């Protein structure tokens, strides 16, 4: 009997070591690619061979030794533009995921903690936003506010916060009845103190996983809006807008291929990390893996 138990414990330890998210090849690759793009974003002026908006080359040069990724319809170096594009997509995606997380998290937390009317109002609002498919609502918001990058970011936040609100509300609801929260309330802690001091640490894990998964979606949605001409405006070197420029000259494949690959690699990398984290944290998937 003890031998069986010991054997089981050993196997469990072995498995959990193997399952540690940071030892999974996909997560490692994902993290490496994200870090690489971060380095590109920070050092773009040093890495890029040319000014991304300088129209100083012949038009439509094929990719080659002179211009690795070719030149576009205005004679700009596509490689330089792709590298500079990281300076827009990466920080903006981080900004809007953080903003959605904070807005959704606080609203969901308050709804879960206070319950009653507040809960009903916040969650019906979230349902309303969920009733629209993301890009349609984002398009409507950007169209109403005026097509520019800042408004596209606002639009993406408007459509992304409810997911966080739902998640946090659920977590708060289950934490609310736990002994440690009850004890804290009995000691006279205010609602806000309970929320931020006692409940927040227990909610942070799942929310961060969701944020990691959401980074990819945020980049896709934002570049989609720019592709439609509702986000970044010319001559900004933004990946979605660059793909759109290539769509007009679609026989010059290099103009849209490379910025598209840039979006794909960043989003895929974030999804590799997020997916591994979710598997590691989600008890349902974890249970399925164990059996």
């Amino acid at each position, binding site marked *: 009997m003890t031998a069986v138990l010991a054997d089981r414990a050993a196997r469990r330890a072995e498995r959990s070591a193997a399952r540690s998210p940071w030892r999974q090849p996909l997560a490692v690759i994902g993290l490496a690619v994200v870090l690489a793009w971060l380095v590109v974003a920070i050092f773009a002026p040093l890495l890029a061979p040319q000014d991304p908006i300088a129209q100083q080359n012949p038009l439509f040069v094929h990719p080659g030794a002179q211009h690795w990724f070719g030149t576009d319809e205005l004679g700009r170096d596509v490689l330089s533009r792709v590298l500079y594009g990281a300076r827009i997509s990466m920080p903006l995606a981080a900004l809007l995921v953080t903003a959605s997380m904070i807005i959704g998290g606080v609203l969901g937390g308050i709804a879960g903690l206070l319950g009653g009317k507040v809960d009903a109002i916040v969650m019906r609002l979230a349902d309303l936003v969920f009733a629209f498919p993301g890009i349609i609502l984002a398009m409507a918001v950007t*169209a109403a506010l005026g097509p520019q990058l800042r408004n596209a970011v606002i639009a993406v936040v408007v459509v992304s916060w409810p997911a966080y609100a739902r998640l946090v509300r659920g977590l708060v609801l289950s934490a609310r009845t736990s002994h440690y929260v009850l004890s804290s309330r009995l000691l006279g802690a205010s609602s806000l103190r309970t929320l931020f001091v006692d409940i927040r640490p227990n909610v942070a894990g799942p929310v961060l996983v969701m944020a990691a998964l959401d980074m*990819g979606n945020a980049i*896709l949605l934002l570049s989609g809006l720019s592709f439609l001409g509702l986000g970044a405006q010319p001559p900004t070197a933004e990946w979605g807008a660059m*793909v759109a420029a290539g769509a007009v000259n679609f*026989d010059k494949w290099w103009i849209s291929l490379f910025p598209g690959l840039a979006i794909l690699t960043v989003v895929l990398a974030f999804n590799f990390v997020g*997916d591994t984290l979710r598997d590691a944290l989600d008890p349902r998937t974890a249970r399925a893996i164990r059996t």
Partner: protein
Amino acid sequence: MTPGVAEPGIVPAGDPGPAEVTADRGRHADLVRFLGRRVGIGAILVVGTTLVAFLLTQLVPGDPAAANLGQRAISDPAAVQAFRQQNGLDKPLPVQYAIYLGHLLRGNLGTSQQSHRPVSTDLSEYVPATVELALFAIVISLLLGVVFGVLAAVTRDRWPDQVLRVVSLAGVSMPTFWIALVAFYVVFFKLGWVPGGGRLEPGQAPPGHITGLYTVDAALHGQWDLLGSVLQHLVLPGLVLAVYTIGMLLRFTRASVLEVLGNDYVRAARAKGLPEWLVIRRHVLRPALVGIITVAGVAFGSLLSGTVLVENIYSWPGIGQYAFRSATNLDLPAIMGVSLVVAIVYIALNIAVDVLYGVIDPRIRLS
């Protein structure tokens, strides 16, 4: 004994016992109550979406009179005043909203500023094209996503699972507008395998209008050549649109099948010697389907989003392209009309998914 299920031998076939009738009636009433509740919530949401649409129009910095009247009329104060009065723009916001709702109830979504036609006329023309495209894509996604998802779960952690994991993650990471362009370039421009865009060849007459879905209409009229052409036009945008949802459904099917595979009844089914495919089909896929259907509902929503991007590239005359043209031209009545229609489809879809749950899983029906 499960309520409503007659025990053989006690109740003669064709003559339901009193207990069964009561149980049946109770279940029926439960289902009606459940449906009523869902439809009620759906209706409230629809009213909510009209409020969102209305408030968005108020956000626009421009003057609706200027946008609607054109240059010459705007310089005439009497014309502007008449326009404001006619559209209730001189009244307080809640009254304006009530007027807007009244118009909506009569099916009046306003007039599109680019086509100068009623938005409802525009929509009735464009909606079937998008529905056809999205249905094609969701059918492909369900087939491929579920089949490969089961394969991934059954071969867990071995190479097919690893490959499928990367493939599905790549699917959900691919910018739709970009893969649409790449596919267009390779399959149409380089290989010439499919036509270049649109729903039909230029000059080809559409089939007689029955449903508005060209595939169905062509088949109903027996126009097989036309059906072939329609399918050729449908296949590339449909597949491109499905890339994201295949990835999504594959990942989810894998997770839910894995969850079910761990159950004792699956072990029991295997132990009694059922062939593996039968175990999967009968004992694993059915319980897993409940979750898959929810995700398919969400997936259909994301397909509707994807159509905006795909329709533009393939000149598909659907609401995606219409929404895009409206958004870039600040044609607010049109974009609000599209948002409303899509939101209503979305809400109806969610109700349908809830009802399907009950059909698949009797335990949910009653709670």
